[in-house]
């Protein structure tokens, strides 16, 4: 920064794909640090912000969840194209985790079991084009679909781990692999 020029506030987004929202809950566990975060960055897209379209020119995007359906696939491609640093947040995004357990069973079998054989009401596989996104044949972790810059495993990653990473990322650094909590699965 020179000539006293105001540095542009970093633009932060968070995205929720095929996950349980636990990683976003962990993000909200930042508690009073959320006020610091609001001062440090503009949250331009998030399940907890009222934006319908993923915006252009985002500096950092945290993505929770695996890529499980056609909407996830379209959104993550848009996110990648419009984000400088893409963060795979939590085990579903990083490994597929519970979301990918259905990969052990063929997709039609999954749908029949869930919506026909075990259904107690309204039996029938959902078929509402344009409303209910079709499931992909196989659930994939983010990095199998788009390039990922930073991985934050954990189910969920702790608020402390997220905060450490955000502090570094919003300053334009990569989170130190050996700093603070060791990233681990589970």
């Amino acid at each position, binding site marked *: 920064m020179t000539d006293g020029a105001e540095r542009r506030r970093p633009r932060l987004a968070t995205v929720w794909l095929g996950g349980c929202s636990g990683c976003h809950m962990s993000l909200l566990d930042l508690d009073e640090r959320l006020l610091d975060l609001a001062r440090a960055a503009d949250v331009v897209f998030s399940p907890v912000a009222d934006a319908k379209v993923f915006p252009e020119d985002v500096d950092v995007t945290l993505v929770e969840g695996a890529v499980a359906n056609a909407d996830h696939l379209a959104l993550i491609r848009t996110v990648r194209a419009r984000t400088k640093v893409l963060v795979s947040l939590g085990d579903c995004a990083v*490994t597929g985790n519970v979301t990918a357990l259905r990969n052990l069973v063929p997709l039609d079998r999954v749908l029949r079991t869930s919506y026909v054989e075990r259904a107690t009401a309204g039996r029938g596989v959902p078929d509402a084009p344009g409303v209910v996104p079709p499931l992909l044949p196989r659930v994939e972790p983010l990095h199998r679909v788009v390039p*990922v810059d930073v991985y934050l495993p954990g189910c969920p990653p702790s608020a402390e781990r997220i905060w450490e990473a955000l502090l570094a990322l919003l300053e334009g650094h990569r989170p130190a692999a050996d700093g603070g909590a060791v990233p681990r699965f589970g």
Partner: protein
Amino acid sequence: MTTVPPETDTITLTVDGTLVSARQGDTLLEVLREHGVAVPTLCDLDGVSDVGACRLCLVEVADRPRPQAACVTAAAEGMAVRTDTERLRSLRRTTVELLLAERNHVCAVCVADGNCELQDLAAATGVDHVSQEYLYPAGLAVDLSHPRFGVDHNRCVLCTRCVRVCDEVEGAHTWDVAGRGAESRVITDMATPWGESPTCTSCGKCVDACPTGALFLRGTTVGEAVRHPERLAYLGAARRERRWLLDLVAGPPAAADGGAAGAPGGAAEETPDRKESKP
């Protein structure tokens, strides 16, 4: 200063540029541990033989083209060993990634989550994602035929600790490995259900030896965490209706054979043997 007589079986080698002494016959892994040099291990287990199955303790030995598994390489005079090169770190990361990709390790819903050596190894070797494609093998069995233990092949890394501890410590040799390559499975006896094994002594050493969630104590899984709220209703009703008191007070005189058995709170009356002995 006293002079220590030279021991003929003492050898000297170099570990990461530092001279260390060792005993003839030591493995490299023993030498490294004795000198506080940490290398990751998985199949290694104190008290049983070494097999070099997991390849995580690979080290570089000068003049040998390929890395060597430290647990099954004998230390030798003049050997120059490196334990922490970029090549070795990369090999170890890849090994851990392949272990995670080969079967279905879903830490978040595993009985060993938080108590798993594979999970620890991933953290220790810097594996924060798996770049190999996950295989998602379908149809890997979970055998719950044994009353106390379970085996989940989704979590098995084929370290063979269970095989070795059962053979070498318990002396039962219930466990072994069947199949080849990706089809390999640990089996009990002739691939018969664990609960029907005539050789298993139910000692549980294999469960203690297992580094992952493949072998586990039954009753520790989430699905087995069954609560019994109906017992509370039973207790409440029993108290209201004074069932136990009535039994004790108005029980047949034959049951009052000695003070202890008839004392309030004594459970002896409820045992099947006592009931059968009643007229």
